[in-house]
């Protein structure tokens, strides 16, 4: 179609209750864009996203034979999909829809300048109309998928995910770096909140895995390379036996469940390095191994001081909360209280986060004699040896009005949290982004919690961020559901808003190859000439390659150079108020 035949566009300007109309003169905006080229319908609406408004749009599109839709409302993140759906239901191509953001980028940002906000809304909408006039009908890319999944990491999340994937009828490859399956949980004794032994849990899961023919387990193995594209990856797995061997498997999805590391305190951090100062995992192992009175290096332990939030919630360091450690420590203290002999337990904390049902454990530990002492954030406890070689922990107790207290302790437990695994190789070969905290990032923390920006690569368990084992299993099963939803269909639809190369214009300079963060561009032979070719299933439509091309040979569908120029021109038409 292009710009030769005049398009018939419907424009709807949303009040968003008063979120927009309190600052933007919506009536004036509609009047200003009514006579733009191509505009057939121009209306304002109190809530564009309301069912009635959507029905009205569909009616308008059909009655006026519209072939383009513009809604000026909120952020595209919220309602692009909604109004693409309206277009599709009205019988026109969903990619002729343009969302114009006059809320986050206008009314909310310019509450002090209604005239300016109104002017800006007109400009933005004119730009949106210009883009829609130059849209071409696009169809989603449909790719066939391989009905197999790869799970990386054989901890509790990976094991549970592998079983789940097998049970929905997929072939599963499970890769574990260590010699044994089981991860952290496989080393734990009694765990909260169900008082089951971690080793037993893992033994049960491993037995289930071994009992399924559709699961192939590679231990002592690592993911070395990934090629192919969404739905059809080829994974290279190196098995580190005496004679290392490389295995290639075809998979439709990759579930990463690579877990976490625990924070390792610096020498001298809260006395770490002094005999009798241990981390939470070291302490957990001690308690798990105890059946009689608790001892440390053969000496009886009668007083324990726990120091919480070590290596966590530190400005400039690990600013996040690891959220499992409070409950794990409280649980361990209950286990200690159950052992024969009496142990005085002092919990020195900033905040106790035994959320949800774990709160009951906190109450129980208090009933069993644990004393909780909150220290001010800027006055952390100090650990030192006194003249007689006894561990002394000095802190300030908020509940006595901040009085300084010194606890003679036999054991000091540094409640260390989770840190991201150092696995740069994996990040590099999967092109997975991590957050500022170093954990893998999901697309949306609420609505798309296990998907990553790399299609077909899902994350589960604590590699995404601190989780306890129950939460890790839940996210593993979420990854199963998400994988099955795609792989069971046999095909997958991809967004068609990807970059394309005009082969005739390409000089194969290679600039786009290095610009692409997703390795979607490869060299290819076209009519005896070497040119750049973009895999539509690998391309994410980021547009990074477009400006680096010296020949202007690359265009991004939906955001072509022509469209962007038209948007800019239209926005500049409106004189600055």
């Amino acid at each position, binding site marked *: 179609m292009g710009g030769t035949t005049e398009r018939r566009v419907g424009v709807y300007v949303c009040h968003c209750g008063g979120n927009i109309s309190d600052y933007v003169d919506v009536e004036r905006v509609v009047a200003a864009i009514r006579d733009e080229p191509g505009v057939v319908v121009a209306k304002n609406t109190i809530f564009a996203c309301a069912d009635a408004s959507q029905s009205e749009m569909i009616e308008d599109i059909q009655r006026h034979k519209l072939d383009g839709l513009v809604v000026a409302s909120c952020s595209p993140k919220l309602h692009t999909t909604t109004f693409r759906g309206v277009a599709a239901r009205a019988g026109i191509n969903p990619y002729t829809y343009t969302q114009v953001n006059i809320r986050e980028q206008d009314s909310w940002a310019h509450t002090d300048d209604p005239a300016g906000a109104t002017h800006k809304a007109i400009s933005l909408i004119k730009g949106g109309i210009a883009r829609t006039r130059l849209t071409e009908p696009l169809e989603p890319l449909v790719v066939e998928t391989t009905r197999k999944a790869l799970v990386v990491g054989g901890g509790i999340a990976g094991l549970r995910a592998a079983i789940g994937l097998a049970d929905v009828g997929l072939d599963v490859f499970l890769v574990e770096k260590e010699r044994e399956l089981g991860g952290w949980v496989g080393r734990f004794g009694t765990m909260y909140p169900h008082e089951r032994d971690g080793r037993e849990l893992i033994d049960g899961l491993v037995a289930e895995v071994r009992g399924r023919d559709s699961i192939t387990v590679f231990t002592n193995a690592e993911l070395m390379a990934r090629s192919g594209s969404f739905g059809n990856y080829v994974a290279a797995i190196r098995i580190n036996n005496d004679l290392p061997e490389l295995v290639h498997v075809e998979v439709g999805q990759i579930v990463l469940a690579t877990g976490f590391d625990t924070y390792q305190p610096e020498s001298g951090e809260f006395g770490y390095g002094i005999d009798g100062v241990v981390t939470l995992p070291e302490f957990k192992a001690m308690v798990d191994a105890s059946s009689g009175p608790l001892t440390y290096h053969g000496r009886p332990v009668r007083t324990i001081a726990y120091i919480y939030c070590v290596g966590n919630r530190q400005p400039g360091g690990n600013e996040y909360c690891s959220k499992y450690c409070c409950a794990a420590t409280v649980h361990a203290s209950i286990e200690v209280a159950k052992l024969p002999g009496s142990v005085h337990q002092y919990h020195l904390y900033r905040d106790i986060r035994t959320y949800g049902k774990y709160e009951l454990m906190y109450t129980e530990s208090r009933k069993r004699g644990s004393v909780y002492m909150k220290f001010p954030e800027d006055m952390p406890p100090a650990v030192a040896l006194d003249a007689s070689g006894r561990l002394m922990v000095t802190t300030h107790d908020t509940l006595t009005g901040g009085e300084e207290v010194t*606890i003679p302790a036999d054991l000091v437990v540094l409640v260390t949290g989770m840190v991201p695994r150092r696995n740069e190789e994996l990040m590099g070969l999967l092109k997975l982004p991590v957050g500022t905290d170093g954990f893998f990032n999901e697309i949306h923390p609420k609505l798309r919690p296990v998907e990553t920006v790399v299609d077909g690569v899902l994350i589960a368990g604590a590699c995404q961020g601190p989780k306890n084992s129950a939460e890790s299993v839940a996210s593993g099963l979420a990854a199963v559901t998400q994988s099955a939803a795609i792989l069971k269909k046999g095909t997958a639809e991809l967004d068609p808003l990807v970059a394309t190369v005009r082969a005739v214009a390409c000089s194969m300079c290679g600039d786009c190859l290095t610009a692409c963060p997703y390795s979607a561009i490869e060299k290819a032979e076209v009519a005896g000439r070497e040119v750049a070719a973009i895999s539509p299933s690998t391309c994410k439509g980021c547009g990074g390659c477009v400006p680096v091309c010296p020949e202007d040979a690359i265009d991004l569908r939906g955001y072509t150079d022509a469209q962007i120029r038209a948007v800019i021109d239209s926005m500049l038409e409106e004189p600055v108020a």
Partner: protein
Amino acid sequence: MTALVDAGLLADVQKFGAADVSACFSCGNCTAICPLSDNDGTFPRRLIRYAQVGMKDALLGSKELWTCYHCGECSDTCPTQADPGGFMAAARRYAIASYDRTRLARTMYTSPLAGSVIAILLAAFFAVFMYASHGPQSTTSLQLFGFIPEALIHNTGVVVMILVFLAGLAGIVTMARGIARREEIALHDVIGGRAALARSGRALWSALAVESLGQRRFRADCETVQDARPWYRRRWFIHASTMWGFLGLLAATILDYGLAVIGVKATGTPVPLWYPVRLLGTLAGLFLIYGTTMLIIDRLQKANRAASDSKASDWTLLALLWVTGVSGFLIEIALYLPQPPAWGYWVFLFHVSVAMELVLLAPFMKFAHAVYRPVALFFYTLAGDRSAAGH
């Protein structure tokens, strides 16, 4: 100054009858309801916290411990049934035991059986000791000092007084040093210079006269639950009646001895009922008997929070006071009977033995509060005065 934790503190205080206050999560309801919580808004919550954490010196050095009269409002409003009022009472018992270095108080408090045995044996000892020197029982008139020699009673009393004075002084010094260290009060703050002396004088007046003899806060602030009762049934009056009665009897005894020393009247000389010293003794005796009897009735009826949780130590003190008072009164009756009864001699021996025991055990039992509370109140007033003066 850092407080070294004694992890066993709470368990130790529990031996003195405290509830398990580990349930306390410092919500502060006790502070909100307490009529005495007028300092920094942490009383009595902070004292419970000291016990939880194991801050022994802080607990023993807290003058606030002794300001409480156990009205029980805090225990009624405590959401965790930690019984703050009961805890405070137990902490005071613990404090009495801790200020005493002989461990006698600790034994009497923590082992009611041992306490009872000590009390009975001691009274029996005094009785046997004095009976060993007994004379004839005159049947014409009640010649009490003919039966038990006056000099023996007098000399035994002096020895007992000296022992009590030394033990009491040691306890007071231990306590006062603990509080002073905590309050950062040096000796010159108390007696160094005219201003300090004036301040101390005011604090002493407040502690001894206004609060102890006058029971000001007990009367004005802490009678919260029994407002419906007539004045003579209220806790403060019953307590004051007991105290005034005891002090009156002590004064009458000393005055009677004083009159003998200056040669006005020999001890034991029959006097009419209106004779001033006799009148004082009679009235004081009535007050003591009324007070202790009502205290016993209140405890039997569990008439209030404080009276509903009676320990052996409470009964021991009440029993000794009541027996002393009643036996003394019987002697007076015997003296005025036309025909001297033979039981008068035995009641006299009993009275003297129990009274000696009461005085001798005072620093090691609940009686000790009679000195510790004024000492604490002295520091309490002093602290208020100092903070008002901008120290």
